[in-house]
């Protein structure tokens, strides 16, 4: 026990002595959180439109008013020159073109269906989808003549604030980076500089050494998470409906998994450079399959199976559920068991691989 405490003290001393390391631990997460939370947004605040009115009737102007007086839209161009409007689209001056056909009013009054063309810049498929759903919802209102047959309630995030969705996920990303990279770099440096050899000839046992390495990392990860959580709650006003202690319970096991992966990377990497590259590579795959950037529900089946092996996907789901929905342990017990099993497996693999050397 005393040996472990001594190693922990040594680790902390080493980390606090290195200025760049401190920067990485303290400044980088804050910058990441601030930039990423603001950058990650599909929501379009004002969709710039060009409108072609080939009908010029009172009905078509009524429809245009609906767009003009809606806070989502911003009518930039208003002319019937198709080519000019397409060029505006190509130069990123507008997001969409709405074309009202000839005989629009006549057909509507006679009860014939009318085709309304909307042209969108679809290079970013996700934003194109959001933009067209904005336009369609206006037309839907028009179709139902203002009556209110369907009533929608947006639960858990009634203001449809995208930050509420992203920030909990970004917090997970931050502790992941710390858990994997810091652990991997820390141990590889001992190898590279040769201090590993010196420790090997001391009476320190393997498990004492590994615990002495892991405990500081878990403490740093927890501190990091707390810092991020405070920023999330105070600056971004993300709600925290569930139990904070429950969050930390999941975080604890999650950090053990991440440190296990970091430890494993350190056993296969020969230099710090290699360790960073391998860690970068692993994290990239983790992040893309985690459901942070794109919903897991939209992935193909084989990718859905893969996400089951990604610890991030569980913890991100837990974070979002506890913070936004106030979920309790009962509805998230599967995630807890999975994380515990993952923690055991990664640690066992890492330690076995470690002892071989």
């Amino acid at each position, binding site marked *: 026990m005393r040996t472990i405490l001594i190693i922990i003290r040594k680790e902390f001393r080493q980390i606090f002595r290195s200025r760049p390391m401190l920067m990485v631990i303290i400044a980088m997460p804050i910058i990441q959180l601030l*930039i990423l939370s603001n*950058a990650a947004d599909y929501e*379009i605040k004002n969709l710039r439109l060009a409108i072609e009115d080939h009908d010029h009737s009172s009905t078509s102007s009524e429809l245009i008013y609906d767009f003009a007086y809606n806070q989502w839209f911003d009518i930039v161009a208003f002319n019937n020159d198709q080519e000019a409007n397409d060029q505006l689209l190509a130069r990123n001056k507008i997001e969409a073109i709405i074309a009202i056909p000839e005989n629009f009013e006549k057909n509507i009054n006679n*009860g014939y269906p009318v085709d309304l063309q909307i*042209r969108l810049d679809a290079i970013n498929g996700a934003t194109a989808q959001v933009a067209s759903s904005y336009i369609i919802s206006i037309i839907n209102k028009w179709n139902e003549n203002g009556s209110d047959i369907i009533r929608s309630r947006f639960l858990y995030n009634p203001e449809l604030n*995208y930050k509420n969705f992203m920030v909990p996920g970004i917090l997970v990303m931050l502790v992941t980076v710390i858990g994997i990279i810091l652990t991997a770099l820390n141990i590889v440096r001992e190898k590279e500089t040769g201090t590993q050899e010196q420790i090997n000839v001391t009476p320190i046992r393997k498990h004492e050494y590994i615990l002495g390495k892991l405990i500081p990392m878990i403490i740093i990860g927890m501190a990091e998470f707390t810092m991020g959580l405070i920023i999330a709650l105070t600056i971004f006003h993300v709600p925290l409906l569930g139990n904070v202690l429950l969050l930390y319970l999941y975080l604890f096991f999650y950090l053990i998994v991440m440190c296990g992966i970091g430890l494993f990377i350190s056993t296969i990497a020969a230099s710090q450079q290699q360790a960073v590259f391998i860690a970068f590579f692993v994290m990239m795959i983790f992040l893309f399959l985690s459901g942070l950037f794109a919903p897991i529900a939209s992935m193909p089946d084989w990718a859905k199976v893969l996400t089951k092996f990604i610890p991030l996907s569980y913890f991100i789901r837990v974070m979002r559920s506890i913070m936004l929905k106030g979920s309790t342990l009962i509805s998230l017990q599967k995630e807890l068991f999975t994380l515990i099993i993952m923690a055991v497996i990664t640690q066992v693999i890492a330690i076995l691989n470690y002892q071989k050397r």
Partner: protein
Amino acid sequence: MKHLRIFVWKEFLHIWRDKKTLMIIILLPIIEVLLFGYVLTSDINNVNLGVRDLDNTTWSHQLILKFQSSNYFKINSLYTAPEVEHALQSNQVKVVLEIKPDAERRLQAGETGIIQLLLDASDPNIARTIETYINSITYSYLQKDAMQSSQINIIPVMYYNPELKSVFKSVPGLMAVVLMLICAMMTSVSLAREKETGSMDVLLISPLKPWHIVIGKIIPYIAISFVNILMITGLSYFVFGVPIRGSIILFFLFSALFVICALSFGLFISTVVKTQQIAMMISLAGLMLPTTLLSGLIYPIRNMPGWLQRLSGIFPARWFVEILCHIMLKDSPIHYYLKPAGIILLITLVLLIMSTKRFKLRYD
């Protein structure tokens, strides 16, 4: 010239010997393209739709059938309010559709709120898109039902990317990320290693001139970048059908410009730092992060707050992505993207001037 050739060969050997790093350099772009192509989509399909049918008549059954046959939804029947609550809480369903009792009669009487939608809005975009789909399906059912007139059909025309594939937007962004990784990060770390291990001094007293060392370090990475460009465009073209609609010559010309820009970043970083670790941290935090997040690779720049948009303008990746979109996807005339090209050129010149100044200061 012979010295230079030998030096370049030595660098190639260094890279070749580090098999793990080499494997990652080659695998990274392949896996990224595949992930972006297959995995990162926000299509709506097989959404778990909870249905609580309090009406339970032929009318409501037919409405539910409409949802079932639409391919977008998977129906889960729910019966009680607590069941609805639990299904939403535990992520079993994304949305619940509640049909009120006696719906058809109330509809004819002109009542409102006959159908209630409960959406899990933790992901606002998905919630909004699902709402639009459900509304459209319901209204088309109601209109057929009532033979109601005056219906506007919407015909969306998706320019440049008709199938809304996310890989279209990603390929230009991926090129930026991968080229930054190889040219800026690898070059800066490689030069920093020579300094850290002291072999830089050995090189400097050798007959090699300083610019030989720089050129010799750069050439292998230019070669690797070229291989990666071919791999990314080839893979995305043959597997996902991402076209190069504009001129291929311009495509390679502007890619080369960006490669030079990234290399000057790497060079500049290496003149500032003393150790590999700091070189890596600076490249990761100062280059990789902004390149991934602020280039428009995942999230559109126009949605960002003003200060972040201006910040993204400092990094060449954003402008490179814009140029590639014009060349690859829009086939725009060249004057549409002269401004971004000019900005990249300017950044490159500034970096080169600054690093030659610093380089001389240290080693002459």
